[in-house]
């Protein structure tokens, strides 16, 4: 479903992605893990063209994401993206945050879009926050609104870039639970995360990155018990024993 083929990306002369090859099949959940600066955010952001690439190509359902001829707005409306810092629209209510893109991009009627937005918010435990502004919500609530906003477009793929890293510990669970629930629906997902337990529990594959390269791709059990690479061993030692 997502085909990343020999992707290279540079910031000026500095190369941040090296020959990335990755195939993510439908309904699979991939975790991107690795040390800070490894290029995880950069890679996940290339999948919906928030970042450009200089070489290689990325196919989503066979459509080349970075091809100038591709209708990027239509493609993006099928790929949900959840940011570390939520990026909710502060001037709009939770309901408007969730229903705007269905209304203005998909041209769904306002009534229909708002009904669906309310359902989504309720299913994420936010039924009583429909009319709240982001500034009136906790971090965990904001992130759940952001997840609802992404789901409102009925995406085929969900991308998460450290969805819990900006949250206080007591709010992490509510957001992880929302993602867990999504995992049971067969959604194709890519999650950048530092939550190793979570990655191990819900993911089909762990993609370990370091220095702009994919160092290792393995099922969680294998990666967490017998990492093949030295970088992987090193990384696990650091994160699991701190």
């Amino acid at each position, binding site marked *: 479903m997502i085909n990343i083929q020999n992707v290279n990306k540079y910031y000026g002369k500095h190369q941040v992605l090296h020959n990335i090859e990755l195939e993510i099949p439908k309904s699979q959940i991939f975790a991107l893990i690795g040390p800070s600066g490894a290029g995880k955010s950069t890679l996940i952001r290339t999948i*919906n063209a*928030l970042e450009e690439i200089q070489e290689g190509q990325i196919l989503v359902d066979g459509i080349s994401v970075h091809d100038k001829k591709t209708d990027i*707005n*239509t493609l*993006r*409306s*099928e*790929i*949900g*993206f959840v*940011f570390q*810092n939520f*990026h*909710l*629209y*502060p*001037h709009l209510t939770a309901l408007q945050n969730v229903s*705007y*893109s269905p209304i*203005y*991009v*998909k041209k769904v009627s306002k009534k229909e879009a708002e009904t669906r937005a309310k359902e989504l918010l309720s299913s994420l435990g936010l039924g009583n926050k429909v009319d709240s*502004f982001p*500034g009136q919500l906790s971090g965990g609530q904001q992130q759940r609104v*952001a997840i609802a*906003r*992404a789901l409102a*477009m009925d995406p085929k793929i969900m991308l998460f870039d450290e969805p819990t890293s900006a949250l206080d510990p007591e709010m992490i669970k509510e957001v992880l639970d929302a993602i867990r629930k999504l995992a049971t629906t067969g959604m194709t997902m890519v999650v950048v995360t530092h939550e190793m337990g979570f990655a191990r529990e819900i993911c089909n594959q762990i993609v370990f990155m370091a220095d702009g390269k994919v160092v290792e791709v393995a099922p969680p059990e294998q990666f967490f018990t017998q990492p093949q690479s030295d970088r992987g061993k090193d990384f696990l030692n650091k994160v699991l024993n701190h």
Partner: protein
Amino acid sequence: MDYNLDWSVIPQNMDAILEGLWLTLQISALALLISIPIGILAGLLRISRNHFISFLATTYIEFIRGVPLLVLLLWIYFVLNQFLHLGAYWSAIVGLAFFSGSFIAEIVRAGIESVPRGQMEAARSSGMSYITAMRLIILPQAFRKVLPPMASQFIILIKDSSLVSVISVADLTLAGKNIVGTTFRSLEVWTFIALLYFAMTFIISQVIRFLEKKYKVAE
């Protein structure tokens, strides 16, 4: 100081004063209405990723900002007017509108740039086009941030409109000049005119303050 105040000069010349006031209001309001779209457009074009478009907008903004309004008005009236036949009234409005527009452009640009980058990214990620994202997500947030500097700009516009008297537009200032010319009551007339200008700008600043409050609650 041996000067007898005589305020009767004001009611005696009320018609001329009100006519001048009315003209000042008209010119300021029309210039304002025209300068807002000019300013928003120029501000948006300036941040365009197309270098040529951005260059054109920058040239307009920097050039107008670098020329005194007085000179701009004289140039429009005595030079541009030869070709476009605007007349004094429209020369004044066009001059004020383009002058004010260049400042509004910079306010708009600063307002847009003050909206965090993540807002545009979030909007584009959910499939909105650049223009839709600007319209629904970025500009409404920028609007709240630009209200105070916009208020200052509108107040400056009203005050600057007093310069149009040099191209013989019979605004409030010219009315004052004419009345003083015949009655020699400088103190009373100019004090009253000053108060009228103050009243206009005061009302504007109150309206904007009200708008600021109204939109603050929403966040």
